[in-house]
């Protein structure tokens, strides 16, 4: 039972506390979903509006990064405790992936 945190020593109180906390977490998830939809709409809108491409490309890439952070930290629970190893793995992957992108776009096939 080492993973189960009994704070009050009273199973019923703990149960209600957990229920409330899960419901609150779900509310945060719905908010981050609404933000994701909003960011997607802004990205499509920016392309349809036909702004200069030197503005649009960095802008929509930034929106994508923000949206992915929401996905990772809320939908995939990386903001919860006990996610040190996932952070190491994902950021490790991101760094190697970034190096790959940089290499392909500057040295190979140009």
């Amino acid at each position, binding site marked *: 039972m080492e993973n*189960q945190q009994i704070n009050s020593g009273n199973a019923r109180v703990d149960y209600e506390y957990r229920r409330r906390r899960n419901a609150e977490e779900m509310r945060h998830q719905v908010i981050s979903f609404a933000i994701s939809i909003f960011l*997607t709409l802004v990205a499509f809108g920016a392309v349809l509006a036909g702004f200069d491409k030197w503005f649009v490309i960095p802008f929509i890439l930034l929106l994508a990064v923000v949206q992915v952070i929401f996905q990772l930290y809320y939908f995939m629970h990386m903001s919860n405790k006990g996610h040190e190893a996932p952070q190491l*793995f994902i950021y490790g992957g991101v760094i190697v992936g970034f190096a790959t992108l940089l290499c*392909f776009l500057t040295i190979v096939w140009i």
Partner: protein
Amino acid sequence: MHVEEQFTPKTWPEAPEKATLEGKNKFLGFWFFLGGETVLFASFFATYLALKDKVPKQGDLVSTDLFELPLAFIMTMVLLTSSITSVYAMYHMKNYHFKKMQAWLLITVLLGLTFLGFEIYEFYHYTHGLGFGYTHSAFSSAFYTLVGFHGGHVVFGLGWITALMVRNSKRGLSLYNAPKFYIASLYWHFIDVVWVFIFTVVYLMGMV
């Protein structure tokens, strides 16, 4: 806590996906795999960007001739929605509501199938309608490899979630299958993460 122990909503542990050693190992191993997947997709994105609009002769099919924003928009919305429905499934898993979890997983699978249908239509339109096959140009190969590999992940994810739903339909929730459901939902979210970059880098940047 034994894996086959019977639970009630009140005795169900706080983090059922990590309550057993097997669950903990799956959690670690799966995130390690996702780190590797990140590198895999990064190399496909790098290849696509390097070979974007590289065609054998002038006037050949390039990104602005192919992509249609309305279709990309619908596909994005369908996949984003399937992400929140699988979050709902995990919410009910944590509250020990097996039936509600199964129902939300079913909605997730149906949305995934809708997405897949749109993608098949899109590829069919490009190959048969426009003659833009896999070996047509360097651009077409890079495009189909990147987007098709993502579609392959969708197919695998759908098969995975469906298999879990069918296999555990009579068993109910236990510490044996809670990590399985949790990991499958993580995979589904990761598919969505990749799609966010695909719709931005391939479809939106292809139309700028």
